[in-house]
């Protein structure tokens, strides 16, 4: 029979350990104001697809055929090879990974093959990937795509914010290629301020900022003349980061383990004495 004191001791130790573990589990996050970001001013975009072409070249795929420039041919969706493209909505909308501040894909990956780097980019480590494709399911913007035709080592394809170029102090390839100033690279805090300043200065030209607080905020921020829902952005996403929804459940695991462990052990003791 477990004595009362022993039981109390065990519970106290358990609780303290748990509290310690919770501290450990809380991750250090990058400062959202300092991390790399891009402001996409959709009112300036002419849909020339120079960004799309630059992205393909930088990622090592064939460039767009010359006939495709402008409103021509080409993948009109994200694929393993097309990590950004110009979506023909009411106005041209550039699509790519939004680089969420608290990405769902990073939180769901069981082997940490996806990582939110301190400088901002969400990058994919293909050598860690097991191919469960949970990231593809979990992404609220449907960004990660899969190399379905690779039988042995299929990879996830998504925009990596040109993390290698950023590390060298350069801007992402698409930003560097943009001829109209639609894309502006900088720090998130400053770009957000600038977006608000533009909105305030020309309320007739701009209607909405997208990316400030959706799913906890994204590193790519859009400034548009119409409501984001009309431009093909997902509707009904919460403002809180999605990983919080899951963490509510996962964080209860230690309590279940200790609680059930105590109850079941007690049951075993009780039943052994009875029989």
């Amino acid at each position, binding site marked *: 029979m477990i004595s009362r004191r022993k039981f109390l001791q065990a519970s106290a130790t358990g609780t303290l350990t748990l509290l310690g573990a919770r501290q450990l589990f809380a991750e250090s996050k990058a400062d959202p104001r300092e991390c790399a970001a891009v402001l996409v001013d959709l009112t300036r975009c002419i849909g020339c697809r120079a960004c799309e072409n630059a992205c393909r070249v930088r990622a090592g795929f064939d460039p767009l055929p010359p006939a495709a420039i402008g409103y021509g041919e080409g993948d009109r969706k994200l694929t393993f090879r097309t990590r950004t493209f110009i979506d023909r909505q009411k106005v041209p909308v550039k699509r790519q990974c939004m680089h969420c501040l608290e990405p769902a894909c990073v939180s769901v990956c*069981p082997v940490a093959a996806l990582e939110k780097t301190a400088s901002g980019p969400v990058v994919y480590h293909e050598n860690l990937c*097991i191919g469960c494709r949970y990231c593809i399911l979990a992404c609220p913007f449907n960004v990660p795509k899969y190399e379905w*035709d690779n*039988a042995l080592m299929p990879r996830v394809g998504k925009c990596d914010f040109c993390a290698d170029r950023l590390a060298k102090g350069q801007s992402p390839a698409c930003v560097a290629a943009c001829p109209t100033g639609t894309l502006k690279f900088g720090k998130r805090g400053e770009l957000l301020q600038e977006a608000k300043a533009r909105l305030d200065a020309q309320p007739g030209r701009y209607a909405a900022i997208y990316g400030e607080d959706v799913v906890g905020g994204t590193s790519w921020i859009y400034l548009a003349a119409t409501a984001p829902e009309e431009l093909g952005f997902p509707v009904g*996403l919460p403002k809180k980061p999605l990983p919080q929804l899951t963490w509510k459940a*996962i964080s209860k695991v230690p309590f279940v*383990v200790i609680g059930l*462990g105590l109850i*079941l052990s007690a049951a075993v003791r009780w039943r052994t004495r009875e029989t």
Partner: protein
Amino acid sequence: MNGLLMLFRIVGVLVGMSAAVYACWLLSGRQFPKHLGSTFGWLLLIVLWGLGGYGLTSRYALGLGAVTNLSDQFPWGIWKAFILCGIAFAAGGFLTACMVYIFRIRLFYPILRPVVLAAYLGYMMSAAGSLIVDLGRYHQIWRPIFYWQHHSVLFEVAWCVMLYSGVLTVEFAPILLEKIGWHRTGRFVHAITVPFVICGVILSTLHQSSLGSLFLIVPNKLLPLWYSPFIPLFFFISALISGFAMAIFVSALSFWIFHKPLEPRVLTTLAKAMTPLLLIYLFLRVVDITSRNAWVYVFRYPLQGFSFTLEMMLLTTPLFVLLRTRWSGRRRWAFAAAIPVIVGVILNRLNVAWIGLLPAMNANYVPSWIETTVTLSLISLGVVIFGLAARYLPLFEHATPGESHTEVMAHASA
């Protein structure tokens, strides 16, 4: 290259078919079929496993894109859904082990072994078998052991299932050890079973609910008929329900087929234990859907509405039997009530992992014939192994954990 692929596929088909022949031969007591009925059974399995062999070799030679209907739009298909179904079905294993080893309910001692074996096979076929087929990099399946990411539900599920498979091995081991006559090892395994069962109950509670938590991250994709902040709780309760139903189903069927006597009270008691859980589950689901104003979705999407209605009907109709004392006391009715419950819980898993995701993901996914036959092959493999174990292992000689271990083993070796 094409010739090589053909060769590979032919080998797959032949291996599948010969495995089917061998399995059928063993199952029918090392005999070839004598009458039409069993010939049909043989042919069915031979064709199925032949197709399964073709499907598997194609999948490993060509990749997921070539043989499945999966796409960037719908990345998780029937193989992932089958994992959810198989694990829900296998919940009877931890329930029965808990009732026998922890609560020492004598009534259930006889059904422990068949139910634990069925659970073991459920995990092997779905969690292990289906996952190895489904993972893009199946050869990296071991990675979660060394690369930890504790924010991921899938990581938690992977660890729980891995550890629980170990627990099931320990629970299943005595049957095998008795057969080969290693009684000292058997006694040792028996002595350490209780702590393992406690771990098994904890692990099962965790991963049965976590399979629901997997979908917490997609509030904008899973239809509100199934998406709920309480989905882990719903998955856990429904796993308990399907666990009781599965225990009824497996024990009734195996004892009847192999002509072993089974006390009728076993089935009716399990059914009585299942009834309040079923009532609680349905009540909570209704309250949950009402509080989120989600009933409109039953009418908004015809397929999803139909699937939801069917799920609810499968889970409610057994109550008419279970709540009527005149019927619930009969084992035939208990068995009849268990079947729609199992199908209902499995349909719930299919709805969560497949049907309920279709509208928001703008997808039109239906499993390809290879996905279907591989899944059916895995299920039939589980059934075949169960049949073989029932035939060749001491599956119906029950260990009695209430008595001293030496006594048990002496009884077993006698």
